[in-house]
């Protein structure tokens, strides 16, 4: 009897040791593409009811005391500009496999922070659209990091299968032609375009596009309707009112799909400025060089500077260095060329 017990006890002992020495791990299981999902499930909060199931978290080994720190960031469709939407830390719970809908219910949130401006922007769109990165760190009960994982998910709505882009990808567009193209939508019977001027008082691109009045291109005008076979157009040919140098323009394309209002299938909004050739003659290639540099950086004030350059009203009175020494335009151009070739040396561009 004792002889039979020895192997059993050895296996039991080894299993016990193994379970205690197993390295903690965490994994997210999520569909890489989600359609028409409400963003609420990505922003956990205590007592939030009805959050949709979006992802599953697996933690091994099970039944040990752990916490999770999470970070959710979002970038708009077709862009690579990730902004933090929310971060949170849970209270201690017993490790196991769970759904995001458990966060805030049986797994309580200890602390959280959300970027309300981004949430408001996303909520205004109805469904989440863009790329979301979910990063989770597994912590022990006192907050030491044990493991981490992340997952990237493309959130699309029906509209996001339609992607509008400028054929010349530059913030400045020629006054005489602005060629745009879009991805064809299966089953579309036609396309409609809306374009409008964006004024400094328009808070968002969406607000600029949808404001009442007389749009530059009216999507409701049947004479501007495009055939289903068309996937590109010169916006200049559709204009109902002219644009001027320095005008900042927003545009969108809608696909007409049988059985749906055309407004339901909507592209991303593009934004560009009509260039001012007179300005460019005065200050040479400076605007285009600066445009390139700003394009290389993710600047909070980038659009403001570009608008200033493109407005045609700007008067450049000179150039100085940080010590107040006057610089020639040639010297400035040389440095800007060097920075264009070595963008890692750029620190910031701002207005003051």
């Amino acid at each position, binding site marked *: 009897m004792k002889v039979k017990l020895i192997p059993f006890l050895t296996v039991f002992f080894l299993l016990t040791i193994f379970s205690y020495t197993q390295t903690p791990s965490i994994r997210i299981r999520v569909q890489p593409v989600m359609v028409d999902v409400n963003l609420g499930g990505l922003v956990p909060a205590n007592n939030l009811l009805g959050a949709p199931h979006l992802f599953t978290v697996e933690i091994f080994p099970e039944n040990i005391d752990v916490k999770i720190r999470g970070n959710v960031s979002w970038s708009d469709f077709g862009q690579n500009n990730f902004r933090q939407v929310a971060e949170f830390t849970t209270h201690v719970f017993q490790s196991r496999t769970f759904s995001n809908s458990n966060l805030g219910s049986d797994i309580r949130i200890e602390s959280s922070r959300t970027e309300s401006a981004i949430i408001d922007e996303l909520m205004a769109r109805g469904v989440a659209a863009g790329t979301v990165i979910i990063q989770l760190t597994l912590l022990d009960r006192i907050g*030491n990091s044990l493991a981490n994982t992340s997952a990237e998910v493309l959130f699309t709505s029906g509209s996001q299968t339609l992607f509008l882009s400028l054929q010349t990808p530059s913030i400045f567009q020629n006054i005489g032609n602005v060629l745009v193209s879009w991805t064809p939508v299966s089953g579309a019977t036609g396309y409609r375009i809306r374009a409008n001027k964006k004024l400094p008082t328009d808070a968002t691109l969406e607000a600029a596009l949808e404001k009442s009045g007389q749009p530059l291109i009216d999507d409701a005008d049947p004479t501007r309707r495009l055939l289903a076979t068309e996937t590109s157009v010169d916006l200049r040919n559709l204009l109902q009112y002219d644009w001027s140098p320095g005008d900042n323009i927003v545009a969108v394309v809608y696909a007409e799909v049988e059985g749906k209002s055309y407004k339901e299938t909507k592209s991303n909004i593009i934004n560009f400025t009509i260039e001012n050739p007179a300005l460019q003659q005065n200050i040479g290639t400076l605007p285009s060089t600066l445009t390139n540099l700003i394009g290389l950086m993710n600047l909070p004030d980038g659009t403001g500077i570009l608008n200033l350059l493109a407005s045609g009203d700007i008067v450049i*009175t000179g150039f100085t*260095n940080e010590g107040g020494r006057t610089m020639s335009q040639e010297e400035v151009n040389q*440095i800007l060329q060097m*920075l264009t070739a070595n963008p890692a040396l750029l620190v910031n561009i701002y207005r003051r």
Partner: protein
Amino acid sequence: MKKIFFILSPFLFFGSMFGQDANRSPVAIVTKVVQVVDFKIEENNWKKANIGQTLTTGNEVKTGQRSLAIVKFIDNSILRIRENSSVILFANRVENAMLKNTEIKNGRLNFKISEQENDEFRFTTPTMVASIRGTSGFFDVDAEGNTVLFVNEGSVEVRGTQGNQQTNTVGAGNYTEVTNVGNVEVKEGGEELQSQFNQSNKTRTRQIIIKSPQGDIVIEYLDDELD
């Protein structure tokens, strides 16, 4: 003002060492901050790093986009932590020698290490350990931990910490790229890596100011330090 700071900095170090646990004594000081630089004393406790911030063993420093931090050790060794990088500083006194180990989690770090005499200066990345006695160069560590080490002056002993765990010496003008395979093959750096090294040396913040009645446009960039 800058001069006064540098004259005082050794006293700041040693002054703050008295009466403290050796492991909690300052080992380095932040001498330059461009844009977003944070440091972490303990888990979940990130703070904005300012010039003059002393760092103790175990402190982590991270830089944001288009940001830079310069960290100077007591022995005048200099680390230039470039944008989107994260490093942890360790220093332990073993008898009369100081063992310094900088763990580079990711990003680019330019180094200029003073002659170490009895001390040792190590860099650790997810795939290699490099021992340095006195030299300059840079590390580039990607998200997978793959590490490029370029040596500008002197030589660096390198050991792969994964896979084959090879060892080799990287001399001036040469580089090695170590992955999780653990091979340490030394190659000539050429103009490209020399140029990257020269860029990673640039830490002087300069400005071009485009003057306009509608508001000045300021372009900030990094240039060589003045001699």
